[in-house]
């Protein structure tokens, strides 16, 4: 069947409402009688609540209620969805993450809430917060994960004096890796920090809890990436309310990047408070609160060693990392530094021996969890920095060193997948040509000439390469279950053919910018051979969509799209039975294409719409066949998908000031088959900007009291339009062999490959000017770069 829409840059169907100001984000929704919540938060990173006096606040006009920790003691904490035990078998430490800090208990990071004011307006609630008197006993606090492990460090949870959440080892036995490193002809060693960054989706989190006294049913509107998952976590683990009495709606959501996967305390509290008060309750975060409360990303301290033989072949990789978990374990947090990071250390290289030793620690900071890429950017950063530095140290060409160590191509169909040393089996890969293509786009040889000339001037030139791989399409449920996940990671879809042949598709995936309302419709229209106008995509509402696991880990099309394909297959299978009956032939004599079933070799056919109508008006109908044409499916992937690619950055470094200017950013990505090239390119662009942001601009700064000192857009440097060049992108296509669309996922690639490319480029520039530095702390501010040269 020929494709009319798949592979085309169809303009987005969802755009018009956003372009005309009619997008409907949670904060845009106002319900009658709606009250507004404001949280009273800890100004200290670690402090005991000695007393709380709410009398004055309660007496204020317009204040409806003030709840403190004592009022919500019965509620459970927000749960963690992944369990990774200590290497000695001890259970992962999972301290309660309470709704509100009660009197006598301690706040464990700045922003930890102690009370919530519910008032008639937002400004009354905000004013009343000033009138809540909290007596605090300030305690010593720690923000650095490395320092938290030192003896005598302030304790985050008294019951865990060493501040460890768990530790973990993975890969080949460490003795084998030690031997490989010790016998190497050259060992490149790098100690570095993958700094903490803040996701900063532009729409701040917002929730409306609405308990309807008539139907005894709750509705939660939430800026989430996964409405059903929030319903499950909130109902079953926090509030203990029946799931069928709760509707969760994720309306238009203004970006997520991971930060809106997790179940947050505010979400459960507005829902709970709405029942206490019998009125809807809204809470919208402001940006300062978002900096304090949204789960952050990255935050690793690493020592990495890569061994090479005399010819430059990688012989071993040994990693020791400390990962910051923050004060509590967020929903996916334990998986990020472990199974989403350690398992990617093979990269695209044939490294025969790999071991990682990981210690995950509590600190007095907000939780760290998955942020665009989640573990895979950290793994890529580590590998790609090492191999580039090794090339500089050994006097080899960084591109050649990669070519020489690449895993040879395999398609996963005629050749088996590639079994790594770190558990995963890559599905299909062809790494050499993406780098070749990137170098061609760059004009590598000419660049090296220009770099030589620039070395004499005031502006050094540098190029940085990064050849990444990621594991996406998360994930086979049985595999992740064996690794500690407490959920299945399948997806569900329903394809409902209406009597007139129009099609409603219900997906458990959730779009918060990814364009599902277009991409998914392209797929369905093509597979059914009908116009795109005849297909509608429904998502984001637990009352209309039967179930869903949501959107993260570049999984929507690979997993959610595959579930839709399963339902389409069922529609076509049943449709063929009806068509055969109407055409008085055997099913086997029929072929489907262009929206109709045709008797092979004849011009006898029946259209999709006629079959649909017959299914609902079954007068002339196969005996024993149920009426209707409406199918649900669940798709549990057979494997992860493994997109890969090559990112190349060109920078100019001002010798006088240390200022780095990103001149070019090249990305050649292989994300498997592509449904909508325009949307895929857009995903790559956004990821690149975030990855570049981490390399050059972004990063949290905590003071000695674990106070976040740059928690606003005045102080936290977000990438802006004039920080970035036009991006140069290209694609290669190696289809995924194990899902029906052959797609691998494109949401995170940009953020995974770009960060090390940019840092490598700056290091390369410095070496060209005679400064043989190994590392500069990210973000690479002018001051840091200047210091590295002086």
């Amino acid at each position, binding site marked *: 069947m020929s494709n009319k829409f798949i592979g085309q840059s169809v303009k*987005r169907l969802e755009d*018009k409402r956003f*372009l005309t100001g009619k997008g409907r984000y949670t904060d845009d929704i106002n*319900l*009658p009688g709606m009250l507004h919540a404001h949280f009273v938060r800890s100004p200290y990173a670690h402090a005991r609540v000695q007393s709380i006096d709410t009398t004055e606040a309660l007496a204020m006009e317009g204040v409806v209620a003030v709840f403190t920790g004592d009022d919500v003691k019965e509620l459970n904490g927000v749960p963690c969805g992944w369990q990774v035990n200590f290497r000695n078998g001890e259970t992962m430490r999972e301290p309660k993450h309470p709704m509100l800090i009660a009197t006598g208990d301690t706040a464990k990071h700045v922003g930890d809430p102690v009370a919530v004011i519910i008032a008639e307006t937002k400004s009354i609630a905000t004013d009343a917060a000033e009138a809540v008197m909290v007596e605090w006993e300030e305690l010593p606090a720690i923000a650095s994960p490395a320092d938290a492990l030192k003896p005598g460090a302030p304790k985050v949870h008294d019951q865990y004096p060493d501040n460890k959440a768990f530790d973990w080892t993975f890969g080949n036995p460490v003795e084998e890796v030690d031997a490989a490193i010790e016998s190497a002809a050259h060992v490149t060693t790098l100690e570095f920090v993958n700094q903490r960054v803040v996701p900063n989706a532009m*729409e701040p989190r917002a929730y409306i809890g609405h308990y309807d006294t008539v139907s005894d049913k709750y509705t939660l509107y939430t800026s989430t990436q996964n409405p059903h998952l929030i319903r499950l976590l909130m109902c079953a683990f926090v509030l203990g309310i029946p799931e069928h009495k709760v509707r969760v709606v994720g309306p238009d959501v203004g970006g997520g990047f991971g930060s809106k996967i997790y179940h947050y305390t505010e979400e459960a509290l507005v829902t709970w408070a709405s029942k206490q008060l019998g009125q809807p309750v809204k809470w919208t975060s402001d940006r300062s609160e978002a900096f304090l409360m949204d789960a952050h990303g990255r935050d690793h301290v690493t020592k990495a060693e890569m061994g090479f033989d005399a010819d430059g072949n990688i012989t071993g990789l040994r990693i020791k990392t400390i990962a910051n978990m923050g004060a509590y374990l967020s929903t996916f947090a334990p998986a990020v530094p472990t199974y989403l990071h350690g398992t990617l250390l093979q990269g695209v290289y044939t490294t025969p021996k790999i071991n990682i030793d990981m210690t995950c620690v509590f600190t007095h900071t907000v939780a760290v969890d998955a942020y665009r890429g989640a573990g895979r950017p950290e793994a890529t950063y580590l590998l790609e920095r090492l191999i580039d530095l090794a090339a500089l140290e050994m006097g080899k060409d960084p591109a050649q060193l990669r070519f020489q160590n690449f895993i040879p191509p395999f398609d996963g169909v005629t050749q088996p997948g590639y079994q790594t040393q770190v558990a995963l089996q890559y599905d299909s890969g062809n790494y050499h040509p993406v780098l070749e293509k990137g170098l061609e786009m760059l004009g590598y040889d000419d660049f090296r000439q220009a770099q030589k000339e620039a070395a004499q001037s005031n502006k050094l030139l540098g190029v940085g390469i990064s050849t990444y791989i990621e594991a996406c399409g998360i994930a086979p449920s049985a595999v992740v279950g064996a690794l500690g996940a407490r959920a299945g990671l399948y997806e569900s879809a329903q394809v409902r053919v209406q009597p007139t042949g129009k099609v409603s598709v219900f997906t458990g995936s959730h779009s*918060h910018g990814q*364009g599902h309302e277009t991409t998914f419709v392209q797929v369905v229209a093509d597979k059914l051979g009908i116009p795109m106008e005849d297909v509608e995509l429904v998502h984001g509402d637990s009352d209309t969509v039967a179930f869903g696991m949501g959107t993260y880990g570049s999984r929507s099309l690979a997993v959610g799209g595959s579930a839709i394909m399963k339902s389409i297959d069922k529609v076509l299978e049943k449709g063929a039975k009806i068509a055969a009956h109407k055409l008085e032939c055997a099913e086997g004599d029929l072929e489907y294409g262009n929206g109709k079933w045709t008797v092979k070799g004849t011009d006898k056919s029946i259209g999709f719409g006629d079959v649909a109508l017959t299914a609902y008006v079954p007068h002339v109908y196969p005996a024993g066949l149920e009426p209707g044409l409406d199918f649900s499916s669940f798709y549990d992937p057979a494997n992860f998908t493994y997109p890969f690619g090559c990112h190349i950055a060109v920078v100019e470094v001002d010798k006088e000031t240390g200022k780095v200017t990103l001149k070019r950013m090249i990305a050649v990505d292989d994300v498997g088959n592509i449904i909508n090239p325009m949307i895929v390119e857009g995903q790559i662009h*956004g990821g690149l900007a975030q990855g570049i942001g981490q390399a050059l601009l972004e990063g949290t700064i905590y003071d000695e009291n674990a106070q976040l000192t740059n928690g606003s857009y005045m102080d936290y440097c977000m990438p802006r*339009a004039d920080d970035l060049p036009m991006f140069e992108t290209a694609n290669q296509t190696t289809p995924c062999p194990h899902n029906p669309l052959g797609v691998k996922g494109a949401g995170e690639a940009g953020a995974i490959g770009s960060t090390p490319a940019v840092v490598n480029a700056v290091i390369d520039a410095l070496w060209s000017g005679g400064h043989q530095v190994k590392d500069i702390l990210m973000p690479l501010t002018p001051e840091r770069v200047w210091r590295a040269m002086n």
Partner: protein
Amino acid sequence: MQIQVTVNGKTRKSEVEDRTLLVHYLRDQLHLTGTHVGCDTSSCGACTVHVDGVAVKSCTLLAAQADGCAVTTIEGMAIQDSPTTSQLHPLQEGFKECHGLQCGFCTPGMIMTAADLLKHNPNPSEAEIREALEGNICRCTGYHNIVKAIQWAATHSTKPEPNQQEEPVVADEHLFTNDVTTGEVVETH
């Protein structure tokens, strides 16, 4: 206090608190929710509107300061936009053509800022566009396609006057229709 503001061509008389910001007046009192709030430090531009034809961050202005002014919001940008007929502003078209939006949260502010730029500089260079967007943050697009969208609009501009009519937005909640607001509602009698 009482203010009188002409919003998207329609004169509004409203009672506002002294401290009400223009953005909250537009969103909460007029239910023009296309204007967004992305920060609390006047740094993100999501709230950008035109006041007397000039792009301003509506979170930096009190509603009272807009008394007597003409305000245009994203809802007033289309040349014509009703459920039956629709002709968008070239910038709105450009953002769609060039995939200049993903989640759409920054988009109204981007368009209002870009409209101001094009008014003063109908053929901006890439560098001039990037500089003009310096006060607007987008976390989704990496700005590449926003730059292209503005270039597209510059070459397809028909110098339209913004639309002065908005139409009602109807909600789909399980409540009586009369109970709910999710956008600006025009009362009909």
